[in-house]
């Protein structure tokens, strides 16, 4: 099939950016979206033009590197990552708009590449269990009810891609932050740091310049791993609980 691509081009963080139009021909329905961009880039290189920069790595939907807003949707029309989106979701003659994640907390690096290190800093603020190597008790010492383990797992599935932030009209990182809090705060291993974790991570999230939640629900719709919107409710509950406990001390 033949497609028209309109892609956000911006040389670096300080330069001005704009949409540029490209034609690609001979696109197969079996190609992944990124393979389609690969063919465009091969052509651009041979024409002596700067290829389109975009983040990608595992190309199997798990590393969380790929991050394109396609026709206004984070990761495009299917509920998956950009790398797992295939061209059979498009039709011959389509015009496709490709833009980077947009959020103040994700400054642009080049073209479609943004800096998501704010997510790392949120995790650094408390998204861990303090369990120094070698200090662990026998794995079966603390049984974990299966429903709790499953609930924790479903939140631990977050790949940190940032689609939630890109889709949110407020550029909020609530879904990302709540996923980690729900994962760790549900498990007995995470209990000792339950309060400090949620308070510190939420404070860091605010500090990094992410917006607040207006429960528009776009984050959960965009999430390729299906983290539900009620994950945020769970975080709010944890936060209120922690605030009450902290206030009582």
């Amino acid at each position, binding site marked *: 099939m033949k497609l028209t691509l*309109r892609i956000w081009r911006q040389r670096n963080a300080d330069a001005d950016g704009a949409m540029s139009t490209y034609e690609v021909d001979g696109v197969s329905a079996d190609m992944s979206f990124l393979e389609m961009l690969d063919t465009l880039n091969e052509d651009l290189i041979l024409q002596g033009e700067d290829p389109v920069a975009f983040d990608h790595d595992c190309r199997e939907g798990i590393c969380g590197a790929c991050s394109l807003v396609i026709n206004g949707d984070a990761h495009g029309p299917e509920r998956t990552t950009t790398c797992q989106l295939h061209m059979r979701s498009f039709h011959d003659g389509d015009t496709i708009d490709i833009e980077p994640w947009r959020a103040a907390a994700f400054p642009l690096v080049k073209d479609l590449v943004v800096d998501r290190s704010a997510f790392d800093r949120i995790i650094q603020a408390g998204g861990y269990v303090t369990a120094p190597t070698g200090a662990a008790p026998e794995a079966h010492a603390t049984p974990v009810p299966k429903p709790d383990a499953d609930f924790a797992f479903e939140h631990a599935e977050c790949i940190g891609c940032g689609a939630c932030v890109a889709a*949110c009209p*407020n550029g909020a990182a609530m879904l990302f932050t709540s996923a980690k809090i729900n994962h760790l705060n549900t498990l007995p291993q995470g209990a000792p740091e339950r309060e400090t974790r949620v308070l510190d991570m*939420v404070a860091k999230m605010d500090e990094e310049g992410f917006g607040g*939640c*207006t429960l528009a629900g776009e984050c959960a719709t965009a999430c390729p791993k299906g983290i539900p919107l009620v994950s945020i409710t769970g975080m709010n509950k*944890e*936060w209120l609980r922690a605030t009450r406990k902290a206030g009582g001390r």
Partner: protein
Amino acid sequence: MARTVWDSSVGKKTVMAVSGLIMLLYLVVHMIGNLKIFFGPGEFNHYAHWLRTVGEPFMHYEWTLWLIRVVLVVAVVAHATSAYQLSRRDLRARPDKYVHRKARTSYATRTMRWGGTILALFIVWHLLDLTTGTVHSGGFQPGHPYQNVVDTFSTWYGDVIYIVAMLALGLHIRHGFWSAAQTLGVGDRARDRALKTVANILALLLTAGFLAVPVAVMTGVVS
């Protein structure tokens, strides 16, 4: 603790939720009171007078009413200030818009922001109209709310302002009640549907209850 709450985006949302629920509770009472208008000027005016004497003899004349007013003003100010500050933060967090826009992306958010602004303006007009009488059409008579209400809804603009505001109120409550539940952490997967239903019923009842009065005046049921 107050500092933690106010400084945090989650905390400020809590302030909005709590103040919103206080106002919602007040609106339910207010609406029930309004419906007394269907029982004639005597009962309606008597009810209005009773509002000033509630709690006597423990409370002095109008103390309870003023207490309620103070609580409401605090709630309104807290709600609006939080909303304003959170909106500012939200807009700052997303300075660049997408070239390819999607219509639906900020439906709820926009409804809440514009609806909230409309409601704030409405409250000012409503107080100047029926509490102080400053902008009242015709002669405002303190102590005769029945006649004042009929006067207001006998003007086309009074009806338009009121109807628009009540529709905005319905939409605001519809998202706001559910939203408050999420903010206060009481929602979960199992309860989500029930919460949405309650929010819809509340929004519908309040809108219908409040709109009954101007409609009654317009159709001559109340005059």
